[in-house]
């Protein structure tokens, strides 16, 4: 939902970032306000995922220029964990497996860290168990996933549901979902999209990073941005995504 007077959550100006010595993001500008859903689209190698990871603070992604203000603060003065506690969430394209750490312990630790950051009391394991089971219903997840090691042996769809479960628990102000639709069959896509829609409010914002338009049939964006050569080269509404679907990315480049 676009409200011109809504608070600015994210302001990116002239962002440049490199990974493995190569310049990938080259002067990216973006403003995201509370209540908005943005889609960042573009072909492989256009810099979408690099942008997402640089915002979250992945150590392999080096920011070489530009500024990013998150909720009024300089994002680059914050470590990845401080960004997370301030309300930035990255839904991973490839969620990491952590054998030996039970999913329930991990989720509780993350949740309680966020509670503490917001000045609220931590939940004990029993209280948390009740709470997380409620949230799992939203994503039609079996409670058995609590007892397994984090993401270990999860299918692609299960890993993505687990990401959105974390989003549901952590209640971020800004969620960047990196290729959350990849590897999902149509049922899983519907469940994940329904989950995201329920979590979107007028106080938070969602940035969907995606190659394909199909997720946007379920999560309707207010803005669609097309990346090319490390920058946003075109911005439009939902209709732009449909045009991309039928005409491909080359058409935007030519424009």
């Amino acid at each position, binding site marked *: 939902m676009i409200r011109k007077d809504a608070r600015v959550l994210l302001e990116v100006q002239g962002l440049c970032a490199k990974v493995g010595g190569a310049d990938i993001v080259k002067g990216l500008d973006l403003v995201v306000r509370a209540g908005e859903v943005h889609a960042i689209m573009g072909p492989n190698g256009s810099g979408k995922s690099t942008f997402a990871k640089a915002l979250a603070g*992945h150590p392999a992604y080096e920011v070489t220029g530009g500024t990013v203000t998150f909720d009024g603060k300089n994002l680059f003065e914050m470590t990845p*964990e401080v960004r997370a506690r301030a309300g930035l969430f990255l839904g991973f394209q490839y969620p990491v497996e952590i054998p030996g750490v039970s999913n329930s312990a991990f989720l509780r630790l993350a949740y309680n860290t966020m509670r503490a950051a917001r000045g609220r009391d931590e939940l004990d394991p029993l209280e948390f168990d009740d709470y997380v089971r409620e949230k799992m219903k939203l994503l039609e997840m079996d409670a058995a996933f609590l007892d397994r090691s984090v993401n270990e042996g999860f299918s692609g769809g299960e890993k993505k549901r687990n990401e959105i479960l*974390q989003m549901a628990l952590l209640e971020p102000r800004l969620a960047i979902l990196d290729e959350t639709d990849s590897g999902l069959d149509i049922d899983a896509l519907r469940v994940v999209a329904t989950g995201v829609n329920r979590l979107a409010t007028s106080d938070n914002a969602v940035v969907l990073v995606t190659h394909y338009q199909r997720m946007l049939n379920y999560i309707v964006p207010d803005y669609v941005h097309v990346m090319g050569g490390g920058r946003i080269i075109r911005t439009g509404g939902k209709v732009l995504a449909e045009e991309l679907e039928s005409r491909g990315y080359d058409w935007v480049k030519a424009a």
Partner: protein
Amino acid sequence: MNAITAQHPYIESLLKGYEMPRSGISWLNQRRSRALERANALTVPTTRDEEWRFTDVAPLTKVNFRPAADVVRLAMSDISGYVIPEAPARLVFVDGLFAPELSDHAGLPSGVVVSNLAAALGVHAAVMEPHLARHAEYEREVFTALNTARLRDGAFVWMPRNQKCAAPVQLLFVATQAEAAAYPRCLVIAEAGSECTVVEDYVSLGDAIHFNDAVTEVVVGEGARVRHVRVQREAEGAFHIAACAASLAKDARYASHTVTLGARLSRLNLGIVQHGDGVEVELDGLALIAGRQLADTHSLVDHARPHGRCRQVHKCIVDGGAHAVFNGKILVRPGAQLTDSSQQSRSLLLSDRAHVDMKPQLEIFADDVKCAHGAAIGQLDAEQLFYLKSRGLSDSRARNLLTYAFAAEVIDRIPVPSLVERLKQTVLVRTQAVA
């Protein structure tokens, strides 16, 4: 014949004043005498010995250890933190001496024998004769020779043919006195078709510097199954040198879980010999050490017969100026065809001063076998670390959690739930302490 004429002054000091018990069992007297001869002849190993290259036992020889002079009477409340509630039988030894008032074997199925060794020798000598001091090698190993020469008491577990006991038997060795040396001896006989779980647990009350020279022999009969858990969580100043020899008959299954948390210097020689076709072996090892600790595990899996399967995982977590050693040898003898044996060793170094020596050794003399080994030494996985931090966990919290997970993977496979919980709690405390 039983004179102490040790070549090495430290061996002499350990044997000083020792009088060999005169038992009426001649085979035992003979074995003890032979072991004493060997202890007299052998010297304390140095780093010039290939088998002790990485482990300098000099700190041990600086302490004048003596068998405990006094009997320390403990109450159940002193050891309750170590008691495994699900165990139907528990033998407790204090400074090497059997403590019947702390032991219990009321919950055992009839026919199963769990007894202190000295008492068992009076009743079951015929069952023990083919095995006691027959599997643990004392001809060349001075500490095994010492233990055997001093063989007096310890634990005896006998599972007669086809007897099964799902619940674990606990053998708890408690050290309390400074400069006390103990020579605990265990013999586990699982006859054909039987099944049991044995937990050997070495603990200290307080921080006394003591020495355990422990030897365990495990005999797994045809088609029998033994799960063997060995926990060494002694005081940080303690010395612990141990040998565990397992002998496996046809189709035997043996799973070993060794957890090393304690002692200033510890060494475990783990030897598994496959005497029959088609055995199945699982070896899990974990050493979690810090400060000035040294933990050395030497394992030998001897595939002397065909169709043996073995899966071994050994992990070390080393912090501070600690030093871990792992030497894992897999021997496939001529004719041991269709052996399938794998070994993985992984180590985590948590400080710049931490040190690990890993030496995988594959010696293969058969041509139709599958053997693999992998060794990795490193730091924590950067992607896992970032994933946790991206969820708000602090750097130290994330590192501790991953360190914990590295250890928990091994502990989770221990088949005794209450012990798993307690060890995980210990590891949790330890890994948070190393922030």
